[in-house]
């Protein structure tokens, strides 16, 4: 079973407001949650990086900071390298 792509209609709404503006934002959130759980890390292992990324560039869209925090975490944990991410071809991956 592979993940079904999220349609716009399935994006969570909160008081009528979209929680995610695009499916990749939901994936970015899920990856951070799943990874900290899987590795038994406290949520702060991610949150402190998110804080740093937001502080670095306060006007950057929120989930772009989130993505940057995620990348710094996976790279620092030696799970991958920036070069490996550059080489990954997203179109061959699970649909976002």
């Amino acid at each position, binding site marked *: 079973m592979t993940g079904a792509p999220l349609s716009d209609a399935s994006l969570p709404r909160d008081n009528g407001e979209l929680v995610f503006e695009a499916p990749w934002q939901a*994936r970015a959130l*899920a990856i951070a949650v799943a990874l900290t759980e899987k590795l038994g890390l406290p949520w702060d292992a991610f949150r402190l990086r998110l804080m740093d990324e937001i502080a670095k560039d306060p006007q950057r869209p929120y989930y772009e900071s989130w993505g940057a925090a995620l990348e710094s975490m*996976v790279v620092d944990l030696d799970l991958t390298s920036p070069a490996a991410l550059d080489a990954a071809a997203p179109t061959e*991956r699970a649909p976002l």
Partner: protein
Amino acid sequence: MTADHHHPAELAPIEARVAAIESVLVEKGILDIDTLDVIVQNFEDNLGPMNGAKVVARAWTDPAYKERLLSDATAAIKEFGFEGPEGEFMVVVENTPDVHNLVVCTLCSCYPWPTLGLPPKWYKAPAYRSRAVREPRKLLAEMGTVIPADVEIRVWDSSAEARYLVLPMRPEATADMSEEQLAAIVTRDSMIGVQRL
């Protein structure tokens, strides 16, 4: 219909990067797609202000529960089964005729996921994060909530050590309402403190 109509449009750089992170972790067997789907689905279906509303409605109708909620919010909220990431170290702050509570996370976006779901966009915006502390009364008025001058505004900065949830005042003329009916009138914004019911 063209042969390549299934090919996705070119991805934005951040979208491609997140896709690359996902695919690398999945290929290494660290994460699997189903786990990620379950997490997203859980946010869609199970996490949201409808949970916090149930907590508030019970506190309004059950004085013993309210006491537990104010003394150990994490445990009292867990009685409903609401727990998980960003759901620890909960602190519930009670609005009274003299005090209005407002919640912000000045450094990032700490927010009680199990009871409120994910934060709205404005909660994460630099303007809200700085002004909630600097000029809460003015900010609230701009958001449509005028707090009377004789009511003190207390601002709570959520962090990993404490995530705040506002217990709004029960509106007048709700004496006949059941707990379930009460839960239906509790809004997300009232539990952040940017709205009064």
